[in-house]
């Protein structure tokens, strides 16, 4: 179906994990006639988090969507948020630059995510995916961050390692960068 005939929403559902969250939410969406265009769900600590971009043939309203999802979420004690996407915001933008996977890990300390991501943002390096976990033991917690980012034109992956090298020394963390730009076969 052409995009202009569809209206899109960003939906997020978060709450204590239990069986049947995805089934409950997607049942409501299915009965409404919504499509799940893109989605990511993950266990974060003991919480289950769903982020979905859903579409529906026009005419449709955010109120209708909430009306169906709210009872399902309330029944499972999940928080619900729904946002209408303005036309043109629903498509992933083309990413012409190299894609890098950056791994950062080290002894847990405040500011690892902030320092790394602000350094990247200052160089116009756009983050597409980011996950963090606190691992290790209670006595020696280890922080692990894995992210994927698009490099602006002309910036080589080696340059990214150099850009992050100062942080590596300062925070005493391991940082590695590898290209994961897809190969067409």
């Amino acid at each position, binding site marked *: 179906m052409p995009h202009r005939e569809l209206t899109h929403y960003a939906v997020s559902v978060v709450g204590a994990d239990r069986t049947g969250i995805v089934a409950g939410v997607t049942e409501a969406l299915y009965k409404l006639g919504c499509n799940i265009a893109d989605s990511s769900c993950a266990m974060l*600590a*003991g919480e289950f988090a769903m982020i979905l971009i859903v579409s529906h043939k026009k005419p449709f309203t955010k109120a209708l969507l909430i009306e169906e999802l709210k009872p399902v979420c309330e029944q499972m004690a999940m928080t619900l948020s729904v946002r209408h996407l303005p036309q043109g915001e629903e498509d992933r933008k083309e990413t012409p630059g190299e*894609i890098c*996977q950056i791994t950062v890990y080290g002894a847990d300390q405040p500011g690892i995510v902030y320092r790394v991501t602000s350094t990247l943002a200052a160089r116009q390096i756009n983050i597409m*995916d980011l*996950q963090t*976990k*606190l*691992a290790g033991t209670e006595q020696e917690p280890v922080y*692990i961050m*894995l992210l*994927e980012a698009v490099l602006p034109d002309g910036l080589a992956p080696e340059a990214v390692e150099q850009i992050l090298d100062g942080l590596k020394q300062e925070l005493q963390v391991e940082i590695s960068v590898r290209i*994961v*730009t*897809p*190969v*067409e*076969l």
Partner: protein
Amino acid sequence: MAVQPILKYPHPLLKKMAHPVAVLDAAIHTLVQDLLDTMYAGPGSVGVAAPQIGVGLRVCVVDVSNSRHGKDNNHGQLCMVNPEIISRSGNAVMREGCMSVPDYTGDVERATEITVRFLNSETGQEREIVATGFEAVAIQHEMDHLDGLLFLDRVMSISTGLFRRKQYR
């Protein structure tokens, strides 16, 4: 000589086992030429397998010599009939895309060194090569098409392993 349209999943032929070639005749030569034309016409494509252009035979072409990952390490143009992997070793992950599965890419683990035996479509001679690096990946990807496998059958999540183990009380 013709560029053929690439079949896209869910076309059923892409999930079928291809048949071995019995005789290297004119039809096979035309098929190989079509595969080459289609490969060189594809944007950045380094290989095409016969099922991708609608022919259920064990024939594929690979040429990584123009790609940045393979330009320094390759056997040039390979036209392979009834290819078989004799041995494989090592493994590495690459993010693959495929003309038969548009708009999706995924991380796939493959052997980094393979020995492949095949019939050279030109000479009809049996040939054995040791391919490494990107060329090895490309050959494995194309040969998967001959077994009805897409890279989707081999995709692994980037977070698998690293983030799985933590137990929360």
